[in-house]
């Protein structure tokens, strides 16, 4: 059972960078105005930041990282681990983490690799960095998490296009004997691997002459085999059952006092799903922030983006107890709880 805790690792800072370019769902011509209103009511997504052709996930994360490193007055050569969590890396290979190591001017002694997880990726990424730093005694570590899912959705698919936005994040970690514990519960159910999938382009289905053919699946849904496929019903069913389950498991396993949690920060899937999870867990409304309205679902960046956009003033320079939970593509999920975190939270950056 992947439930464990790591001590002596402090989350020092978080920054997020989103594209300047904004798309409003109300302006979409793909569906009728009535359908859009209903969509907004259910998902909570009014607008999304969409990267232009020139901007990739690594650019957003790079900018977030540069500003975070300088705000924390870090020496770059002290960073010994860089993990890039994304499903929209620059290339199929090499990993974007190596490109980022070079762009950021980090030491060649720094270990760097990608983790291609999505919605659960931020929590997974923290568990990997915290675990590695603790084991190896690394002084500083950097987690870059984000996605530009807009690049892999079909512009003619109403089941994905209005939901996803782009964002990148950077989170800084330091060895600190005064840091509280970080508790984790992580899990996987690969039987649902087809629920969220890009079918072609990997080694299983190499790009072939049919890959880019656009097929009409139903009214309002046309896409190719290189585009993202999302089975909304199965994702919803999974989210409302697994979300509460993993949170409860963490709370029970480590006897966490729910009252002491200042904020419950969930992956921003869609409003109906998130509200249902919060309701099932009987969480007070004021402790559950949402960033869906302005940013949509930004994959592995939703948790840090919600912290930066909704909680900055509440947690800045204050000791906070934060519970974070991500769930989705894989299917995969992760929940973590951090005690007494004093997190330097930067203003939202636009690129």
């Amino acid at each position, binding site marked *: 059972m992947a439930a464990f805790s790591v001590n002596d690792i402090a989350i020092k800072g978080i920054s997020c960078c989103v594209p300047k370019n904004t798309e409003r769902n109300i302006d979409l011509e793909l569906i009728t105005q009535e359908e859009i209103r209903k969509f907004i009511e259910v998902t909570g997504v009014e607008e999304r930041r969409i990267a232009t052709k020139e901007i990739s996930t690594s650019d957003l994360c790079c900018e977030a990282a540069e500003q975070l490193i300088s705000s924390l007055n870090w020496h770059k050569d002290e960073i010994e681990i860089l993990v890039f969590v994304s499903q929209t890396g620059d290339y199929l290979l090499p990993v974007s983490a190596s490109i980022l190591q070079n762009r950021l001017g980090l030491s060649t002694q720094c270990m760097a690799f990608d983790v291609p997880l999505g919605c659960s990726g931020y929590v997974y990424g923290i568990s990997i960095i915290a675990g590695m730093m603790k084991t190896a005694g690394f002084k500083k570590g950097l987690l870059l998490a984000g996605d530009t899912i807009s690049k892999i959705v079909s512009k003619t698919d109403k089941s994905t296009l209005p939901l996803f936005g782009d964002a990148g994040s950077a989170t800084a970690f330091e060895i600190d004997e005064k840091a509280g514990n970080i508790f984790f519960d992580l899990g996987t159910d690969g039987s649902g691997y087809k629920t969220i999938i890009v079918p072609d382009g990997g080694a299983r289905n190499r790009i072939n002459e049919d890959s880019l053919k656009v097929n009409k699946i139903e009214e309002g849904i046309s896409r190719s085999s290189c585009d993202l496929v999302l089975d909304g*019903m*199965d994702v919803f*069913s999974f989210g*409302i*059952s697994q979300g509460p389950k993993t949170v409860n498991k963490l709370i029970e396993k480590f006897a966490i006092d729910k009252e002491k949690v200042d904020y419950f920060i969930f992956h921003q899937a869609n409003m109906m799903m998130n509200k249902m999870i919060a309701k099932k867990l009987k969480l007070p409304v004021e402790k559950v922030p949402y960033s869906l309205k302005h940013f949509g679902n930004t994959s592995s960046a939703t948790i840090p983006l919600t912290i930066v956009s909704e909680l900055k003033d509440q947690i800045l320079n204050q000791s906070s107890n934060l519970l974070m939970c991500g769930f989705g593509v894989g299917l995969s999920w992760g929940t973590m709880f951090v005690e007494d975190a004093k997190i330097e939270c930067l203003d939202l950056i636009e690129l």
Partner: protein
Amino acid sequence: MEMNTFLQNFADILDETDAILITQETVFRDLDEWNSLTALSLIAMADEEYDVKLTGDDIKSSNSLNDIFEIIKNKG
């Protein structure tokens, strides 16, 4: 599990459809108001009221509300 209660629960997730139209023979897919978002409400209702996890396949393979009723009953 009561059919009438189930039909009432189903009618409650709809905004504009007259509850009179909701019977166990109703082909829910043919309702004007039915779409992928109402499907999510149905999944939510099954979870909240019956503690049952409805999948996309459950809904896709069903025609009438009676079919959904039977699936929930068998899973419950």
